């Protein structure tokens, strides 16, 4: 118990004096995960919208697949991306294994199904309300999909944040494709894993505190924005 108390105090001291090593890691984490969530949103949201409005054979199967992929184990994604990017792999010549780019790719793959599946659910609910009206006005599928994306925008913020939460908190994929190289690919989660095994509990704990606070703060902000927007726009 005493050890934990000591570690906590040291962790807070590290945060308090804006320790450079600590903040380098935090900044890289944010860069990687924010880029990954942006890429995943650009790909996942249109997929969600298309699945919400399109009727085609096998649609239900695609939806089930997407829902299942939400639970994709990060280490498996890491392994697949590793195989793709390794020297002998099909994308080996790009030479991006063990770089932040590889980590972004792995995290994006991990969260595209989350954003796709959750946004599909949100937009399908809206589509039930809108379908007849939009068809009556002569909206084609593409127009309908973009209308749904815009009209559910406040709920989609929450969906995208769920994706970000998953990306920033996962460790399995980024440690495989990033390699946890100090100053290059070391992010919060991989650093926590490493420092814990090395016994540097204060740094691990400091990063843990920041990671958790960050996720809570982002979600609080999102829910406040959503509440305010819904009050204002109905």
């Amino acid at each position: 118990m005493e050890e934990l108390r000591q570690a906590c105090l040291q962790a807070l001291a590290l945060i308090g004096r804006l320790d450079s090593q600590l903040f380098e890691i935090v900044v890289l984490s944010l860069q990687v995960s924010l880029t990954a969530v942006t890429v995943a949103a650009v790909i996942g949201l249109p997929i969600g919208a298309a699945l919400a409005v399109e009727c085609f054979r096998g649609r239900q199967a695609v939806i089930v697949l997407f829902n299942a992929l939400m639970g994709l184990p990060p280490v498996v994604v890491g392994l697949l991306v590793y195989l793709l990017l390794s020297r002998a792999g099909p994308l080996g010549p790009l030479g991006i294994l063990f770089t932040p780019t590889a980590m972004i790719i792995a995290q994006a793959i991990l969260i595209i199904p989350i954003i796709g599946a959750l946004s599909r659910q949100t937009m399908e609910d809206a589509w039930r309300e809108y379908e007849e009206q939009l068809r009556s006005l002569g909206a084609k599928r593409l127009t309908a999909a973009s209308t749904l994306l815009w009209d559910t925008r406040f709920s989609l913020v929450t969906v995208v944040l769920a994706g970000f939460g998953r990306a920033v908190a996962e460790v399995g994929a980024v440690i495989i494709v990033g390699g946890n190289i100090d100053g290059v690919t070391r992010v919060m989660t991989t650093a926590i894993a490493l420092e814990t095994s090395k016994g540097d509990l204060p740094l691990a704990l400091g990063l843990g505190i920041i990671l958790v606070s960050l996720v809570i703060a982002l979600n609080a902000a999102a829910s406040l924005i959503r509440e305010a927007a819904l009050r204002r726009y109905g």
Partner: protein
Amino acid sequence: MLPLELRDLCFAINGNTIIDRISVQIEDGPRTIILGPNGAGKSVLMRLCHGLLKPTSGTVAWTGRRPNRRSGGQAMVFQRPVMLRRSALRNVMYGLKLAGVSRTECELRAHDVLDAVGLSHVAHHPARVLSGGEQQRLALARAWALGPEVLFLDEPTANLDPGAAREIESIIGAIHASGAKIIMTTHNLGQARRLGDEILFINQGRLTERSSADRFFREPASAEATAFLRGELP
């Protein structure tokens, strides 16, 4: 595009016949009220006419000349107005844009029509926070702006209080006066008397009676219509 010709129109879902061999020709001019008890198939018939549902058998044909692109052909207002999550003005412009009207003209026409339904003062308010009556007026404005040759109205005042319902009725009168053919369902006898020129009486999916409103209310020809007028049908 009128007259609208229905030939042996049938619609069934899961083996239940909703519309049963309706044949009728609806001409330009008089306000046509589709009257009937709850569950008679009025709304389904209207959706078949508007093209939102495909008939199981039989045909819906517009036998007149094709509408030109500038006038919208046909439009529909639903029992529950579907408001897009944007301002009242943008809701009207949305329909116009889909009809291929240029942006500047969209805005002009939208302002005009909002003025005509008495919503100019809330043009920039979010549509979804307007009252029920205002939302239905906005839905009418959105349809009217398209300059439709035929306007379908499905129980447009069913969810409104009497005051709001009267406002809707007077707007429907104005839309008719501006040259649009009105085809409307209702189960409200008072409203059918006030707005109807001719009555199509539907019961259990069949067209039981067609006559001028005067004659229908004075001396209904069928036993079902007589029972309905006495309030003996639901």
